[in-house]
């Protein structure tokens, strides 16, 4: 075979270059909306964020001023409730998968179901909690919203806990047992404690994901224009409020929606970046 470029090999080189160009184009097309969204958010939201935003409740329609204090506090309340429900159950399920059920068929079934539950649309969860809690109680409540969010957190927390616990080397467990610790204490005080940075990371991930969810709160917490922190009444939440304001015809409310969106995205980006930092720095390799 002589060294000249045959037509075929030229064609192959052209194809290779074309695909490289297409791949780069695809990456640019993917990163572009992200940059567009973020920059527009900052541009529109930054001007509306002032102290009023964080301490005032919404003003009556047509009046300027007012803020989203009730929505921020309401989000905190509902998220706390959800974490109280979702984190312990999720961690316990993860402990089962990693410590007691490793290799069993039950564990495979639980893992599979957790992944499937992860994919269930959040509005369907909201519907189910509506049927389960709101209808018997005959009123919307922050409790129902918290339960809906908590159920959404369970699969994520469970899977990340399992992954982190599997990373703890067996020697640590064996050493604890060899020293006479009861099994349950070895699991809790040694294994879980070793993996705790990773487990906390997983909880933060679930928290960040659930913090932005609106659909499950639509028919459970309902939203509230006034200040309320009671568990038995409808409560405002930041994503809910953004949704309502965005679809309204008032410019003032649009401004508030942008500001709220900026606050929400900053919180979520901070948590995701923190998660990335912790996992990449190997802090969770607690055994070493």
């Amino acid at each position, binding site marked *: 075979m002589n060294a000249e470029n045959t037509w075929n090999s030229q064609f192959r080189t052209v194809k290779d270059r074309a695909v490289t160009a297409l791949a780069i184009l695809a990456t640019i097309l993917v990163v572009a909306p992200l940059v567009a969204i973020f920059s527009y958010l900052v541009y529109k939201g930054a001007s509306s964020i002032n102290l009023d935003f964080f301490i005032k409740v919404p003003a009556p329609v047509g009046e300027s001023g007012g803020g989203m204090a009730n929505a921020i506090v309401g989000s905190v309340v509902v998220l706390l409730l959800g974490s109280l429900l979702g984190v312990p159950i999720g961690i316990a399920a993860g402990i089962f998968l990693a410590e007691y059920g490793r290799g069993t068929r039950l564990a495979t079934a639980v893992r599979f179901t957790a992944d499937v539950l992860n994919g269930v649309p959040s509005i369907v969860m909201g519907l189910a909690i509506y049927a389960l809690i709101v209808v018997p109680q005959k009123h919307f409540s922050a409790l129902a919203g918290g339960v809906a969010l908590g159920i959404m957190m369970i699969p994520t927390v469970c899977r990340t806990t399992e992954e982190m616990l599997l990373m703890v080397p067996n020697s640590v467990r064996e050493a604890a047992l060899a020293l006479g610790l009861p099994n349950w204490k070895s699991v809790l005080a040694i294994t879980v404690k070793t993996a705790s940075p990773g487990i906390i990371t997983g909880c933060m991930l679930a928290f960040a994901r659930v913090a932005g969810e609106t659909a499950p709160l639509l028919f459970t917490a309902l939203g509230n224009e006034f200040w309320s922190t009671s568990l038995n009444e409808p409560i405002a939440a930041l994503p809910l409020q953004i949704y309502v304001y965005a679809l309204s015809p008032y410019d003032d409310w649009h401004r508030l929606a942008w500001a709220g969106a900026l606050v929400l995205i900053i919180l*979520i980006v901070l948590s995701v970046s923190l998660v990335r930092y912790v996992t990449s720095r190997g802090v969770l390799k607690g055994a070493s």
Partner: protein
Amino acid sequence: MSEASANATEIHAPRVHFETPQASAIGAAPAAAPEPSDVRKYLYSRGNSAIADRGFQWLMVICALSIFAIVALIAFELFQRSQLTWHAFGLSFFTKGFVDSDTGRLSYWDPINSHFSAIPFIYGTLVTSGLALLFAVPLAIGVAIFLTEMCPGFLRGPLAFLTELLAAIPSVIYGLWAVFVLVPLLRVYVNPLLIKSLGWTGLFNDDNPTGLGFFAAGIILAIMILPIISSLTREVMTAVPHSQREAVLALGATRWEMINMGVLRNARIGIVGAVILGLGRALGETMAVTMVIGNTAEIHGSLLANGATMASVIANEFTEAVGDMHTSALIEIGLALFAVTIVVNAIARILVWAVTRGTPVQNR
């Protein structure tokens, strides 16, 4: 010896007596069991943790089983609350429309006259998800190829982080941006262009000048499912062993041929799984779609027309439902959505698991 006695007093344990094996074998009477040593007596007196261990294990098992309970509970509640429509319409809820007695036109969703049919929402869901897949899959696979095979090392981390950041943005914020930026863009620049150039296909006609509709929803959905498909595709592509790549390169392939024959061919099943997972997310996506789709319970052939999806109609009409039949119909739509997303997600997970199974976690 003195150290042993000093230790013995500190831990308050009885002094150790070692029994030599010969002594116990010769001197032990066959009928009576040997007297437990002091050490053993001490250890037995402390009890064991059998009860605590079993209790703790059962607690963990119950929490794990709660995941099954949650899925079962959701299915049960949805089924229970949609009984009204099941009895009234049966399966024709999903297959037949109604002829309006006054005008003779075909209508699907008429709460006033208690005509409920899920057809326009099934159509809307299929069209928006189809559009989203059409836009997202080539881009996601392109990004995955770039990040795994072509990207210079220093860029890989930041770009991967950016792609995952797309997944972290909440749905409402996508909707907010779509309503105020994307829809005006479509309305003013893109839609007229599409109508002029591709109007002959019948897919783009100019009945809807608002810029809302299936097309806008498809675009925003595509942006939302991109990171899922892309990160899973990256995962299955890195799971392909390097020996495959090296073998193809050794035969004289260009880089694209190496990717095509060595990596993509092996990762095919996983990529299909990733796409189906993206489809599952697109089917259930509510907020962003609700804000841009125009919310009209009708079927139109044009991609620029307003419509509604299963999730969007629930989000829009549930809190203001007119009567029990309306609520029941909406819950039945929710049940259908639940069933479909479970099946789609199960298929996707099986496919991805089949490809990445056995790969150590650290390699992904």
